[in-house]
């Protein structure tokens, strides 16, 4: 009997190592909450800027190229800033979780996860850059959502499976948004803001709460 118990333990070990060496399982729920909060904040600033632009437009009654270029550039820099702050914070929260578990952030599992995230995401970044370059702005929001969703779905094979559901939701939001490009900012805020927060809370509740105490 005792020997059989050992065999069972051995199988558990094998399963555990196979899983840990191929999947990056230390994504923190806080990363999602942070990214969502930053995205919502960015969306609010964009909303205010757009509001001001249209108010001035109505007061003047005619199109002003300088104002338009100004707005476009501001939104562009805002987008990049939001992306960097969201990414940096998400990275730090995950790093903190990895440290707590005495794991390493740079191993074959995390490399696989990042590669599978980066390739579709990079493709999306090139597409969005081309939209900006050609001054064709209406499909930026849906393209962000679609490519981000595909990246998450793809990378989900190498991390917690739950992230694939977030990926599918982002793709659906992006697909609907393609047909209503004028509402892009609202879809963007829902997908990158609200959904990240919801996802982060669910992940935190499911994986982080029990294991790492207050974080």
């Amino acid at each position, binding site marked *: 009997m005792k020997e059989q118990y050992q065999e069972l333990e051995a199988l558990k*070990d094998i399963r555990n190592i196979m899983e840990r060496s*191929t999947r990056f399982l230390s994504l923190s729920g806080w990363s999602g909450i942070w990214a969502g909060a930053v995205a919502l904040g960015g969306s609010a600033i964009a909303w205010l800027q757009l509001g001001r632009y249209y108010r001035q437009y109505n007061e003047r009654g005619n199109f002003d190229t300088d104002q338009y270029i100004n707005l476009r550039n501001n939104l562009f820099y805002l987008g990049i800033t939001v992306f960097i702050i969201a990414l940096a914070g998400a990275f730090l929260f995950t790093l903190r979780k990895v440290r707590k578990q005495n794991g390493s952030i740079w*191993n*074959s599992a995390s490399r696989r996860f990042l590669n599978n995230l980066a390739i579709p995401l990079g493709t999306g970044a090139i597409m969005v850059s081309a939209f900006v370059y050609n001054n064709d702005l209406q499909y930026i929001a849906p393209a962000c959502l679609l490519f981000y969703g595909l990246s998450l779905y793809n990378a989900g094979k190498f991390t917690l499976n739950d992230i694939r559901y977030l990926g599918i939701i982002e793709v659906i939001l992006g697909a609907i948004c393609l047909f209503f490009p004028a509402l892009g900012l609202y879809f963007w805020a829902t997908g990158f803001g609200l959904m990240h927060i919801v996802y982060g809370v669910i992940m935190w509740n499911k994986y982080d709460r029990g294991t790492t105490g207050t974080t």
Partner: protein
Amino acid sequence: MRKEIEQLNKIFDSRIRIGIMSALMVNESMNFNELKALVDATDGNLATHLKTLEDNTFIKVEKGFIGRKTNTTYAITKAGEKAFRSHLDALEKIIKNLG
């Protein structure tokens, strides 16, 4: 039951060797430090077990460089994969006999 226990490969008796084989089954290749973090062994201990597996031609060793630093990577061989799979089959049979 005796027969199945005999089918278990003696080389895979050790937890660390089982760990190394499991990791190399699902990863094309891994270096020393990655394996160390995964199986939780000391340098000397891990090196000894890797040597045993290498001597049995279950894994192959490749010495390379990253810049000037040596980077030794390990990969599973066909023979190693076959031996580990039959070891897993034997384990499974033993556990099935439990119920």
